[in-house]
C-alpha cells in the first residue's frame, strides 16, 4: 500500500517537475475506445509502454529523486488513475503549473476504460467506496481541523500554501476526497489508513459534503473566509452609504 501511494505521488511530482512532458493532445482524430488504445494516444508519450515510465538521465532528478519524463504507472492502481482522470488533472495541461480541477476531455466510458487498463498494469489499490452517510459531521469537523484546515481552510474554501494552492473542495466528490487523502496529489501529504482510518475518512467526507452548504445563519455568507470580504463590505457598502448620507444632508461647495 505504502509503495503504491508513494509511486502515485511520484507520478504527479515528476511529471510536474520535468519540462516537456506535455505530449499528446486529446481529440485529434483518435477513434480508439479501448483503454489500451486511449493510453497509447494520450498517455504513452510520457508514461511509456505498458506504464513502464519514461526515464531520462538528461533531466535533473525531480522530487523524491525520481528520474524521468513521466513516472511508471505499474502498480498505482485504479485508485490513482480514477482520481487524476475524473478530476481532470490528467492529461496534464501544462507540466510547469499545478494542475487545476478541470473538466476531463474523456467521457465516463473512456475514463472507465483507461482506469481498467492502468489497473491491469500491476497490483494496486482499487477505487475506494467511501460511505459518508456512516460518518459523523461533528467528528468530521474535528478531524478536518486537525488534518486538513491548515491548507484547505476550515470551511474547505481553499487557501495558499508555499508554492501551491490548496484547492477549495466545493466540487470534490466523496470518492475523489477519499482518493486524494490516500494519494496526496501534488504537494498534499499522503494519509495512509494508519493515520486516517476508513471510518474517520467517512466522517471527514461527511463534513466536507456538509461544508458545501453549511448553516448560513446571519444572512449573506460573503465567501465564508472571514475578514477580507468583511472589510470590503465595511468600506464599499457601509462607509460608502454613510459618506453618501453626509453628502446628502450636509452642504457642498457651490460651483
Amino acid at each position, binding site marked *: 500500500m505504502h509503495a503504491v501511494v508513494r509511486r502515485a505521488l511520484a507520478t504527479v511530482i515528476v511529471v510536474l517537475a520535468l519540462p516537456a512532458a506535455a505530449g499528446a493532445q486529446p481529440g485529434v482524430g483518435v477513434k480508439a475506445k479501448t483503454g489500451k488504445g486511449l493510453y497509447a494516444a494520450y498517455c504513452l508519450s510520457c508514461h511509456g509502454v505498458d506504464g513502464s515510465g519514461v526515464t531520462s538521465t538528461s533531466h535533473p532528478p525531480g522530487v523524491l529523486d525520481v528520474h524521468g519524463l513521466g513516472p511508471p504507472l505499474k502498480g498505482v492502481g485504479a485508485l490513482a488513475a480514477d482520481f487524476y482522470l475524473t478530476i481532470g488533472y490528467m492529461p496534464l495541461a501544462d507540466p510547469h503549473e499545478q494542475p487545476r480541477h478541470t473538466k476531463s476531455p474523456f467521457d465516463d466510458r473512456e475514463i472507465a476504460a483507461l482506469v481498467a487498463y492502468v489497473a491491469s498494469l500491476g497490483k494496486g489499490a482499487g477505487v475506494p467506496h467511501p460511505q459518508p452517510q456512516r460518518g459523523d459531521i461533528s467528528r468530521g469537523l474535528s478531524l478536518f481541523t486537525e488534518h486538513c484546515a491548515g491548507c484547505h481552510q476550515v470551511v474547505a474554501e481553499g487557501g495558499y500554501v508555499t508554492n501551491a494552492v490548496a484547492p477549495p473542495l466545493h466540487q470534490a466528490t466523496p470518492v475523489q476526497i477519499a482518493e486524494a487523502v490516500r494519494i496526496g496529489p501534488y504537494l498534499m501529504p499522503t494519509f495512509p489508513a494508519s493515520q486516517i482510518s476508513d471510518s474517520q475518512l467517512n466522517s471527514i467526507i461527511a463534513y466536507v459534503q456538509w461544508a458545501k452548504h453549511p448553516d448560513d*445563519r446571519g444572512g449573506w455568507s460573503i465567501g465564508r*473566509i472571514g475578514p477580507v470580504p468583511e472589510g470590503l463590505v465595511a468600506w464599499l457598502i457601509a462607509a460608502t452609504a454613510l459618506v453618501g448620507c453626509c453628502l446628502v444632508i450636509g452642504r*457642498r461647495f457651490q460651483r
Partner: protein
Amino acid sequence: MIRAVVRYLDERSGTAPFLKKALRYVFPDHWSFLLGEVALYTFVILVGTGIYLTLFFEPSTATTYYTGHYLPLRGHEMSVAYRSAVDLSFKVRAGLLMRQTHHWAADVFVASIVLHMLRIFFTGAFRKPRDLTYYLGLTMLIVALLEGYLGYSLVDDLLSGMGLAIGYSVLMSIPFVGGNLALLLWGAPFPGKPDFESRMYVAHVFLLPILIATLLGLHLFLVAARHHTQFRESRRTTEKKVIGIPTFPGQAPRSLGLFFAVAAVLFLLGGLIQINPIWLWGPYHVAQGTNGAQPDWYLGWLIGALRLVPSFDVTIGHYTLVPNPFWGGALFPLLVFLILYLSPWLERRLTGEYGFRHLLDRPRDAPWRTALGAALFTWVFVVFLAGASDRVFVSFGVSYVGQIWVYRVLVVILPVVALFATRRLCLALQESERLGRIRKQAEAEARGEMPQPE
C-alpha cells in the same frame, strides 16, 4: 416647547445662560464635518450592542462540551467563552443580530475615524490651536484598534486563537523587553493563564471603552471650546468670525437624522450580511489553525507588513537581538503613528507658520502637505493591500510570491509617485482656477461691467 423645558431647568438649576449658549452654538454645515459624527454615533451603537452582549457572554477559558443543536459542534471540547458566544448567536433572542451589528459597527467605527482623520489632515485642520484635539483623535484611533483586536480575540474561536498567537509573537519580538512584556500580559507562555481571558474582557468591556469615552469627551470639549474651522469660501468667512448653523433648529435634526442613518446601516448589515460566523470556524486549540486566517480590516496593514518584510533576524552570535516580526508588526505601526503625531509640529517647523489657523485649506491650496499626506497614505495602503495577497492568489490565481515581490517594489515606488503626482495635480488645479478667474474678469470687463473684487 423648548422654551418651557429651558424655563423648567433654569428655575431649578440656573442653567439658562449655558443652555442658551448651547442652543445657539454654531455648527459647521459642510458635509465633510459630519464624518466625525458618524464615528461618534457608531461608538454609541457599539456601546449599546456591547452592553447587550455582556449579558450573555461568559469570559472563561474553563473547558466545557457543546451539547446544543448545532450538529457540527456536538460533543466538541471548547472553552466556556466560545460556547457562550455560539449559544449567544443561536439561542439568545436577537443575539446574532446584536453580535453581528456589534462587529460591523467595529469595522465601520475605525473606517469612519480614518475618513474623519483624512479630512482633518488634508484640510490642515490639525494646525494650532487644534493640534491637541488632533492628538486626542489619533489616540482614540489607536485605542479603537486595540479594542477591536480584543473583541476579535475574546471569543476563543479558531481565528481568535490564531490572531492572539500572532499578537503574542509580535509582542515577544520587541528587543530586550518583549519576552517579559508578553509574560506579564499572558501570565504564562502562550496560550497563557486563564486570567488572560479575564484581562482581555475587563479591558474590552470596561477599561478601553471608558478610555475612549473620556478621550471623546475631551475631544468634543476642545472642538466646542475652539469652535469649528471653516473653508475660505466667501468674504464672510475670515480668521476672526465663525459662521455656521445653530444647534436648534439647524444642527439638531440633521445630526439626529445622521444618527438614525448610522443605526440603520449598521443594523441592516447586522441582520442581512454574515460577519465572523464563529460556529463555522470551530473552537481554538493550541497548534490548530486554518488557512487564510486574517485579522479584521483595520489590522490588515500589520499583516501586510509582516508579509512584506524579507525574512531576516538581527543576531549576535546565538542571541537574537531583533526577531523578524518586530519590523512589520511593531516598528511599522509605531513609525506611521509617530509621523501622524508629529505632523502638526513638522508643518510648523517647515512652513514657519506659528500662528493660529482657523481657516481651512482645500487640499490644492497646500500642495506640499497634500502631496506628503498622499505619499504617507499610499505607503500604508500598499502595505494594507499586501495583507490580502493570499486570498487574491486563491480567488484570482495571481502568483503569491510574485505579488509579494511586486508589493515590495510598489511600497517604495508608489509613495514617491504619489508625492510628485499629487503636487503636480494641486498646482495644476490652482493654475486652472487662476485662469478661470482671469477669464471671468476679462469677460466682465468686455461686457462693460465694473470688475468685482473676489
